[in-house]
C-alpha cells in the first residue's frame, strides 16, 4: 500500500542519515514521541529546531564579525545551538558546535570563524535532510487522513 511504501522510504532515508552520522539514535527517541495524540510532533520539532538554529547562527556570525568579540555571549549562543542539535539527534552538527566552543576557549577569532563555517555546513546538510523528512511526514499524514488545516497551538505539549 502507498502509505506503507512511504513509511518504508522514510525509514530508509533516516537510516541513511544514521549511516552518514548526520543523525544519531536520539532522533529515534524524538520520533518515538509522535503518536496519535501528537501526530505532528516531528514536524513541529524540526520547525522549531531549524528556526532557532538559523537565528542563533546569525547571531554568532554577528558577534564574531565584531572587531572586539564578546566571547561570553558567543559561548552562551554556542551552548544553545549544541543543546538543540543534540536534543534533536543532529550528531554531526552537535560535534561541530563542540569544536566551535573549543575554539572560543582560546579567544582566537580565526579559529572560531573556521569552526563556525563548519557549523554552518553541518546545519545546511542537516536542514536539507530534515526538510525531506518533513515533506515525507506531511505526505504520510495527508494519506492517513490526519492532516487538518490548522495545527492547534500548543498541540505538542
Amino acid at each position: 500500500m502507498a502509505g506503507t511504501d512511504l513509511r518504508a522510504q522514510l525509514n530508509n532515508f533516516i537510516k541513511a542519515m544514521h549511516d552518514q552520522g548526520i543523525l544519531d539514535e536520539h532522533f529515534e527517541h524524538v520520533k518515538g514521541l509522535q503518536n496519535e495524540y501528537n501526530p505532528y510532533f516531528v514536524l513541529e520539532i524540526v520547525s522549531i529546531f531549524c528556526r532557532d538554529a538559523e537565528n542563533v547562527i546569525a547571531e554568532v556570525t554577528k558577534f564574531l564579525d565584531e572587531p572586539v568579540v564578546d566571547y561570553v555571549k558567543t559561548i552562551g549562543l554556542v551552548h544553545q545551538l549544541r543543546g538543540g542539535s543534540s536534543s534533536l539527534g543532529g550528531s554531526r552538527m552537535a560535534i561541530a558546535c563542540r569544536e566551535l566552543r573549543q575554539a572560543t576557549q582560546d579567544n582566537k577569532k580565526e579559529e572560531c570563524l573556521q569552526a563556525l563555517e563548519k557549523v554552518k555546513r553541518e546545519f545546511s546538510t542537516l536542514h536539507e535532510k530534515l526538510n525531506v523528512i518533513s515533506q515525507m511526514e506531511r505526505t504520510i499524514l495527508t494519506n492517513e487522513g490526519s492532516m487538518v488545516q490548522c495545527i492547534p497551538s500548543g498541540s505538542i505539549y
Partner: protein
Amino acid sequence: MAPAIEGMVPAIESSEGNNKMNKGYQYPSWKKKLRGLVVDNEELCRIVEKGIMGLCGVETQAVETGEAAVELIASGATFDIIVIDRFLPSMTGPETARKMREMGVESKIIGLFALYFEGDEEEFVAAGVDDFKEKPLSPNWLVPMLRELDN
C-alpha cells in the same frame, strides 16, 4: 520506531498506567506514580526532555526559569526527579538547585549541560545536585535512575 531499551518488554496494545505506549516498544511502568520537573529555557530541549521523561513513565511538568520552578515548589508541588539546565536566564541552574535544597527539597536533582567540559559540574555539585549529564536526556540513562527511585 524507538530503539529497544535494556529491560523493556515488547509492545502490547494497552492504555493502562501512566505511560504512553509506542508501537514497537513499551516504555517502563512503575510501582509508584513518579513525578518529574524539567527546568530548561530552550523550547526544543524543554519539549523533548519533557517528552522523554513522559515516555519513561514520569508524569512531568516543564518550566522555563529557575524562578518558575521555585515558585512551583513553594506552592506545594512535589517531584521525584528534577532536571535543571545549567544556563537559565536569570537564576542559574546551580542557583536554582541550591534554592531548592534550602527549601528542603529532597528530590533527585539532575544538572543538565548543553556542552560539558571537565570541571563544569563543580558549581552544580556544590549546589547539591545528585548527578549531572550532558544533553541529550536519553531513556537509556534515565531508566536505571527511575528504577532506583521506584524501589
